[in-house]
């Protein structure tokens, strides 16, 4: 993901653009935590939309009395932000030392093979986004993977594969 942060330029109809702007504005102005900063605004948009659209940068800058450069600086710094719409599912596998020692490498390989990827990124059919995670915080259950933030512990390469297959099945219905 982080290797390609250039936003995709696509001809979005005006009505959809307005809709997107409204959603960004709402996310920025209705933050539930009292301290509002550039970072908190960006996180709020990420929670709402799953990514940081182009339009969001200037809205965040304006709302926080900041500059576009500063907002980009923060957004490009934290690897959890992405700049194009995410795939339907997020698959994360932990590669931290605890998981590494008990077989995370095999799990990563199985998942990447199944998703036909060779590293972080989106599958061609936009079914899943694959991410490495430095620690999912469930070390006693290592190796750990998470699908859409639901964690699965003590996972084998085979189980990981079947989780991905299931994901495919749920999305594609019966045709795959």
């Amino acid at each position, binding site marked *: 993901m*982080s290797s390609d*942060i*250039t*936003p995709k330029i696509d001809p979005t109809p005006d009505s959809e653009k307005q809709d997107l702007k409204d959603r960004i504005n709402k996310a920025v102005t209705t933050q539930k*935590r*009292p*301290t509002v*900063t*550039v*970072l*908190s*605004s*960006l*996180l709020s948009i990420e929670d709402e939309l799953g990514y940081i659209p182009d339009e969001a*940068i200037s809205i965040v*800058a*304006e709302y926080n*009395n*900041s*500059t*576009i*450069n*500063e*907002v*980009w*600086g*923060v*957004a*490009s*710094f*934290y*690897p*959890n*932000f992405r700049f194009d719409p995410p795939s339907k599912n997020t698959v994360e596998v*932990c*590669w*931290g*030392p*605890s*998981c*590494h*020692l008990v077989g995370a*490498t095999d799990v990563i*390989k199985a998942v990447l093979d199944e998703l036909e990827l060779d590293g*972080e990124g989106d599958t061609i059919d936009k079914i899943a986004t694959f991410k*490495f995670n*430095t*620690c*999912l*915080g*469930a*070390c*006693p*259950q*290592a190796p750990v993977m998470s699908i859409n933030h*639901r*964690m*699965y*512990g*003590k996972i084998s390469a085979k189980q990981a594969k079947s989780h991905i297959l299931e994901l495919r099945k749920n999305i594609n219905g019966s045709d795959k």
Partner: protein
Amino acid sequence: MSSYETLKELAESRWSELTKGSAPWIKIGMSMCCGQASGAYETLGEIKEVLNSLSIEANVSEVGCLGICYASPVVDILLPNKHRAVYGNVTPDLVHDLVDRCLVKGKIPKKNLLGVENLGTNNLQGLPDFNELPQIKLQNRIALRNAGHIDPKDIYQYIARGGYLGLNRALTDLKPEDVIEEIKSSGLRGRGGAAFPTGVKWSFMTRGEKPKYILCNCEEGDPGAFNDKSILESDPYTTIEGMAIAAYATGSTNGIIFIRHGHDGPIDATEDAIKQAYEVGLLGKNILGSDFSFDLEVSLTGESYVAGEETALMEAVEGKRSMPRARPPFPAAYGVWGRPSTINNVKSLSYAPSILEHGSDWFSSIGVNKSTGTAIICLSGNIKYPGLYEVPMGLTIGDVIDNIGGGVPNGRKLKMLQTGGPLGGVLSSDSLEIRLDFDEMREAGAILGSGGIIVADDRTCAVDLTRVLVAFCQFESCGKCFPCRLGTTNLLEIVERMSSNKARLGDVELMKQIGQTMQAGSLCGHGQLGFNPIESAMKHFKEDWSACVDEGKCLTGSCNKPHFTPINTRPFAEAPIKNTVPIQIANQVGEKNE
């Protein structure tokens, strides 16, 4: 404003309803570190369904972590005035039988039983005593005293178990200076890694004008450590009370608990707990009827390991890139938004309530030498019983690994230990006699740090594990100081070469040079300690390195497996060209947020 006595009365009556009433109390461990990943949600759903279908009246609570993560999902069944039975590895298919036999037939089935505790019955012969399990018996839970015992969504359960006695004592009997003295004489040292005396840190804050800030650090990006998140998830009140005590002692008006975005368990639990504390008058204006006021909130950061460094954390709170600041000025003079601030780790703050409740002598009697109190150990890796164990300082590493952790499984031998987070360094198997003591561990070339102990067996190659640790350091470098930004990247390149048997002549020398530069030229511990994993691994596992580097043949073969190393592009990331408008002011009017 409610007084402490009225709160306590209400709490105790609720507690006795749960523990002395007629309905059984079923507790399921749902914390992030074990419950969720092991399928506790399914177990919980099944339990509710079965109770419904058998029309059994029972109190069901989602609780935190008992520490015995290896056995999760853990189901703890309490029958008032009779017994408490704790079951491990309760998968949904076992639930129906378990509920039926425990609650309908009144039996204690032995299948999956970890142990029982007698609460007034006399027919528990032949059943294992839960409190005699080595994993429970060898623990001395202070910061985690309520974890797994109370519902983190009910502040009254915390109060019923002695919560807020400490703050109440501070507000009614002690002056702020006395509180600092009490913490100083307890010998409490910061649990975040640096082991700086907490009381001394607080005393720096007594000067300076309000508003002053108390920050609580739960960034905890260390792989292999999950204790801060577990405390907040299992018992957020102890941290909140600890912060209120710290605020009273230092004259602070505001507090911020800082958690990584995406760790929803601790975030939700903490925010809910703060809301409840406000509702009953334990936060906000005139706490417990005194003239002490304190406001507390949660702030989130993006994924960044360096945000756990104290000044980087302040930058993140202000919404900027989490990069460390140059010191001086120190946080006590110029902290978050330029205000006097002090930062403590979740664990350090969580000890404060107990220290004020039982006195500093009690706390300093636990532990060894200058390391008082307990160590909260996260045990993971190649170990039979991984989990979260709070043990007295002074226990040896061998005790923790063999007696609590059950040793290395599958007849394998212990080879390596990785302590105190990825920068802490590795130890060899002859270090089992080292005691859990900040200074003793530092002398041995490791740190207790965040309390993570990762165990590696003899299938592991030191070079391979080092590669993962260096990759982590590279991935998480914030990029501010070039010795760290470029140094970690170069180190990773070299270790990658070594672990694929393509080492070049002079690589070892080059690594040492880079390591020295990083140590000398980095602002924070990330760069200063970044060479630690390599240095310690080379010291303890010479044969592994010489095999991989000189002979080009890995001893265990683990280097030769295909591996994936995510590369950090953060230091090199640029905004897309079309957005890089030089100094474009979005809003011409108005001042910057200060």
